[in-house]
């Protein structure tokens, strides 16, 4: 189902906005997580882990889900389709995987924030972990690959796309 160009442009605008927001939030997480790992002051580590929780829940998760939803919508309302071209399928798999890992990782962000709160209230001092840095770096690489797929759109029709093309050629 291909919608008129006005709707497609609106959908593309939403998809780009959500994806850019997601990538920006991932970059922010990367910087914060790196700051925690390299910090000497435990209070700075606490502050970072307290910040990562709202960043995850209120920025990363909404933008990630919005990016996935608008991407799927965009593929369905344009000529690209959801399963006709390999680049769309690969990008969908990458994005869905990233959102799934992100949703799972919110548990870790919650635990880190709770530990930071305990430490800030006089508990055992918090020591930085490389886990948020590794996850943010992985997310950044994954989103950049997805971005490259969107821009370069490498050739290749899936079997479903080939069947559709043949039936269209036959008329």
């Amino acid at each position, binding site marked *: 189902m291909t919608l008129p160009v006005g709707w497609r442009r609106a959908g593309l605008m939403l998809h780009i906005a959500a994806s850019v927001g997601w990538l920006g939030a991932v970059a922010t997480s990367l910087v914060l997580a790196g700051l925690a790992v390299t910090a000497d002051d435990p209070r700075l580590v606490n502050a970072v882990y307290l910040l990562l929780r709202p960043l995850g829940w209120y920025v990363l998760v909404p933008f990630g889900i919005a990016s996935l939803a608008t991407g799927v919508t965009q593929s369905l309302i344009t000529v690209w389709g959801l399963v006709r071209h*390999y680049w769309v399928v690969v990008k969908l798999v990458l994005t869905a995987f990233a959102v799934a890992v992100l949703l799972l990782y919110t548990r870790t962000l919650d635990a880190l924030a709770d530990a930071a709160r305990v430490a800030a209230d006089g508990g055992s001092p918090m020591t930085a972990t490389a886990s948020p840095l590794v996850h943010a770096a992985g997310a950044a690489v994954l989103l950049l690959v997805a971005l490259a797929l969107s821009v370069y759109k490498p050739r290749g029709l899936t079997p479903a796309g080939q069947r559709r093309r043949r039936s269209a050629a036959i008329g």
Partner: protein
Amino acid sequence: MTRQVPVGEEGMPRWVKVFLVIGVLVLVLIGVAVLTGHGPGRHLGHGPVPAAASGERG
């Protein structure tokens, strides 16, 4: 009516195969990480202070 399939459209492109290999390797790495105790939930402690506060690194 003849079928007109462009050359190179049949079969899986090489770049997709490369992505598949990398994806499988990443999944294997994740599996190994989970089996060796570096997977999801690793930072969830059961005491008053979660494991992340106990001094682990990496």
